[in-house]
């Protein structure tokens, strides 16, 4: 900062500026409920998580300061790296099909004439259904002897699979459920984006003789880029925090070979089963860093390209 030059100027101007700011105190008061609630339920837990990450605490006895001890253990913990790998794999296995399916459905809904609202509601219902109830439902669908999936396989003459007992089966079952739950939500967002694209562009394309595929890739997709960016980032934040699906479907240990152990499940296990709260706080911080990192990557991929043009 160019301190010496600006300080006198600042002292001259602050007095009236401050007065102007405080004269709006009624407006600040009107806004304050949000900030007070955020401070109590958002900021305070965040700050205490950061403090806790440098301590050891079993939940009841005295806390002990351990410096970077929790983080040092974290980078050497094979379960953490496995959880990280599982989370990223699950994220890719669920987000890519979710967004592709959602986009297809949105384009189809855009052109459908009858019962559009019925479809919209139907696609959105999974998103508001109780996650635990659905996880129980999906674990019966994928169960070995009496599950629907295996019944379908048997009728096609394919041998039945032990879905929730095999490492890859667990991942398929979990990502299927995530896809099922989030397709409708993203469809609606894409649909809103589609409706904002000017009709004239489509008409012009038609006049120029472009087919449906060409129109989709040359007009729809580029115009939807900001919406796609939004959905990708929302999916990143959600996908990296996958917890309920594996916890209900394969249990707290993450199932066979811990292949359903996500980072948040690992965090839950450290905090509430092992009562190792300091370590859990360190894991929570790592999730935060992970989400930031992935969001930044997505931002670059999906926005950067648009600006280069």
């Amino acid at each position, binding site marked *: 900062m160019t301190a010496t030059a600006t300080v006198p100027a600042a002292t001259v101007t602050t007095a009236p500026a401050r007065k102007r700011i405080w004269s709006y105190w009624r407006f600040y008061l009107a806004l304050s409920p949000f900030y007070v609630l955020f401070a109590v339920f958002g900021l305070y837990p965040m700050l205490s998580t950061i403090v806790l990450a440098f301590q050891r605490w079993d939940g009841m006895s005295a806390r002990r300061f351990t410096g970077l001890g929790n983080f040092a253990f974290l980078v050497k913990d094979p379960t953490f790296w496995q959880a990280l790998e599982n989370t990223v794999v699950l994220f890719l296995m669920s987000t890519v099909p979710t967004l592709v399916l959602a986009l297809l459905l949105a384009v189809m809904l855009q052109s459908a004439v009858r019962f559009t609202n019925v479809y919209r509601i139907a696609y959105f219902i999974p998103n508001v259904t109780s996650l635990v109830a659905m996880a129980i439902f999906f674990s019966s669908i994928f169960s*070995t*002897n009496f599950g629907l999936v295996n019944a379908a396989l048997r009728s096609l003459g394919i041998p039945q699979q032990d879905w929730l007992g095999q490492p890859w089966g667990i991942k398929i079952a979990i990502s299927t459920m995530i896809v099922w739950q989030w397709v409708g939500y993203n469809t609606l967002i894409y649909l809103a984006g589609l409706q904002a694209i000017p009709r004239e562009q489509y008409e012009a394309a038609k006049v120029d003789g472009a087919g449906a595929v060409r129109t989709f890739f040359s007009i729809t997709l580029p115009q939807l880029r900001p919406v796609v960016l939004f959905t990708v980032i929302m999916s990143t934040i959600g996908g990296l925090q996958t917890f309920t699906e594996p916890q209900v479907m394969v249990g707290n240990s993450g199932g066979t070979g811990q292949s359903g152990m996500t980072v948040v499940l690992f965090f839950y296990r450290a905090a509430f089963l092992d009562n*190792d709260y300091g370590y859990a706080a360190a894991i929570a911080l790592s999730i935060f860093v992970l989400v930031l990192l992935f969001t930044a990557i997505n931002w670059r991929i999906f926005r950067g390209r648009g600006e280069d043009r």
Partner: protein
Amino acid sequence: MELSRRTLLGGFAAVASGLAGGSLVGCSSGMNNAGAPAKKNAATELSFWCWPGGLGKSVLDDTIAHFPDPKIKYSEIGGDFKQKLITTFNGGTSIPDITGLKGEDIASLLPQAERFVDLKTVGADSVLGDYLDWKVKQATTLDGKVIGLPIDVGPTALFYREDIFAAGGLPSDPAKVAEQLKTWDDFFAAGVELKAKNPKAPIVGDAAGLYDMVVGQGTERYISKDNKFIGDQDHIRKAWDTAVKAMTLKIDGRTPSGGPDWNAGLDQGTVPAHIGAAWVALDIKSAVKKSAGKWRLAPTPGGPANFGGSFLAITKNAADPQKAFDVIKYMLSADNEAKAFTDAQIFPSTPAAYDKPELKAKDAFFGGQVPIDIFGPAAKGIPVAYQSPFDDSVAAPFHDELKTVQTGSKTSDAAWSSAVSKAKAIATRQGVQ
């Protein structure tokens, strides 16, 4: 009247500094909490926490009526009971006078013994002999404090389908089963025989679950009394190998209990047997429709083990620990435990209750067999094993890795060494040598 700006700002500043201060000194106040003398509860009522279904309804109603002064205020706490209790302890207010403690949590709460009243100081010596010795030991600290009086226990037995055993050429009468299926080897041999005649009926429901049972039959677990990791030793390896043997003999159904496959399999005969605690009877009864009356009970092969079973404890915050102890002593008397068994199948921790008419009743679900004839001797014969506060955390890798053997993705030896190294890492993290 207008709110003055100055008071408003003052208020905000106070809130803000309170928040900031709270987050930064949170650690130090936590330290003070543990050592400081507990704040006493008000003497006007006796607050009492337990989880849904933890106590018999008629016993509870009777106890509340029996102690009118101070009045017992009972709260049923659902969800993660231990977590809510710990949170309340940390909060420092509304801590109950009397609280239930679950059997799976007791080991991790023993290091917190200073938060609970040592029941010996309020006269527990006179009644401790009425309870199963091994169960009292679970709630006893290494220096001899008793923090909980046992509510119930979970002795195991072999539940089996009489009709399927008979059709498979196995003994089907409980006495004959008890005589012939004494060890795990006997049990596995019977499984191989049954499989030859009825390939759809694997005698072991889930070998990974069986592993826990075998560990529970021993007198040592993963961590020794002097805080050393012993999970890599012979007693654990033996349990591991027993489970793996069931897999290699192909008599493992790979059907974890409680799932939809297990529920359906009980009726259809693809789960012809289950080894589980006394309370599993309720699960089986509610899962089956057709096979009622075809089930029988026999002693667990290889000896009894315990699964579950809880305690009642008095916190240091109790206004009148003596009065609180009178309440739990009354509630957990042999007569009341027998009543609780009729109420909700809460299996008594007092051997005297096993001779009461409530428990001597025949059970039509088990073809008129008297369940206590199997569970009673099992409860008395359960081995005492020291359970460290970190036992469950350390056990987790063994379960996970055993499942990789079960699905064929790892060999037994590879999975074993991976389980041991993961378990050792967890133990070291918790300060075990």
